[in-house]
């Protein structure tokens, strides 16, 4: 892994250790720029504030080899988005931001030698913005559905509002994607 990513990860791990983050849940899911299948840990930083570290596997596509993606994200579950259905099923919404890194030779974090300084921004790291819903199915198991907009997509939307707004679903499917998965809570 490249030095910038190591620095970012180190900083976030230090922050999480500094605030005595506790691993609260383990997640398994598919989609949303994190892999055909991905898993990760959900650490509670402060009340309602989570840090997630995830690793995902992307299957071989036509013309593209399989590869691994790493992602780190921050998630905020505000109380205002929590609803108890029949006092039994907790449905809660959340928002977040994250970074995903793809371990592929062709992509880069540090500019390869052939380019002049500052010629391109890194191609191996992308940011994303998350909106999601968790539904408590059982005492320790939750189902989640997320929409994630890619950084370049959000940037594109803001610069080309008329173009995207007039598309199907106001263009949100053109700039992002969905994922579903399960969360297993082992600290109640």
């Amino acid at each position: 892994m490249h030095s910038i990513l190591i620095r970012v990860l180190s900083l976030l791990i230090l922050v999480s250790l500094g605030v005595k983050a506790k691993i609260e849940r383990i997640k398994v899911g598919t989609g949303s720029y994190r892999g055909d299948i991905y898993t990760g840990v959900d650490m509670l930083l402060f009340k309602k504030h989570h840090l997630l570290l995830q690793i995902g596997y992307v299957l071989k596509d036509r013309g593209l080899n399989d590869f691994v993606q790493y992602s780190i994200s921050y998630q905020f579950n505000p109380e205002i988005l929590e609803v108890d259905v029949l006092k039994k099923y907790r449905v809660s919404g959340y928002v977040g931001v994250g970074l995903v890194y793809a371990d592929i030779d062709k992509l880069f974090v540090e500019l390869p030698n052939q380019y002049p300084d500052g010629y391109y921004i890194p191609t191996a790291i992308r940011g994303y913005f998350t909106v999601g819903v968790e539904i408590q199915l059982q005492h320790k198991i939750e189902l989640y559905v997320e929409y994630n907009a890619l950084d370049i997509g959000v940037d594109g939307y803001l610069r080309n509002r008329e173009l995207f707004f007039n598309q199907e679903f106001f263009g949100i499917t053109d700039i992002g994607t969905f994922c579903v998965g399960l969360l297993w809570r082992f600290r109640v």
Partner: protein
Amino acid sequence: MEIQSLKVEANIIKTIFSALLLLLLSGCDFSPTPWNLDTTECSGIYTADNIKKLEKLNNLESLDSYSIGLTADSQRYPERLRDALKELKSDQKVKFIVILGDLTELGLSMEFNWICKIIKEIDKPIFTVIGNHDGLSFGKQLWSKIFGLYDYSFNFQDSKFIFYNDNKYEFQGLKLPDIDFIERESTIKDNENREHTIAFSHILPWSQKENSDEVLKFNDFLFQQNIIYNLHGHTHKEDIEVVESEIYRLYHIVVANSESDRYGKVTVFRGRDSLKVEFCQTGKSCRTVLNE
């Protein structure tokens, strides 16, 4: 009372699962990675198909003059590209349009799909040359899948149009531009009636060549192939560079980027050596910058 409550709960669970199932089946994208080769929106814009479309037009009528629409470097501003293409679409003199590279910022499939949607709205043949930004990430594979070849050519109204890839940083290991290809395509065949040979590439010859001798040699080569007019993007600023030597005069015409709402037009007159070049701004009139 308890049975009724259980029924309600079961209904809620059913509703939640139905909603999720609907979401899964509704065609919502569950893309596992931003670095994919998904080109869902890009069918039907293959270069070879556009060449066939233009051939039909070529066989249909002989024109005294016609124009070529030019845009470049839409990158983060596909909306501006759409606006320029709409204006070029409504101009009856414009017979085909060339996008001079950098259709995307990072060569991601998401960006290509945005552009494909826009191109598909235009019923005129649209041709492209690959830009340096388009070659990033998996842009090269996506490009081949969407448009086909990087280097190609066609004839239209007794002129030859040559499109070539000159992004040498992004195509390490290849000797670009492919001189052999340009030489082969620009050579006039027996019984061919040729008025002009016009070339299109993303980058001006000297933008990536530190060695001025190399630039000089390349311009000499272009002249030897009788390629007097060369069209480019890349620098984001409209410009006409005139290369003069004792024996020749070449033109490198640069079209500004879409962000600045600029586009261009080249008009070819049958039986006349020179071309007319106009630089335009969407919503405003065009100004003639070359008409010798």
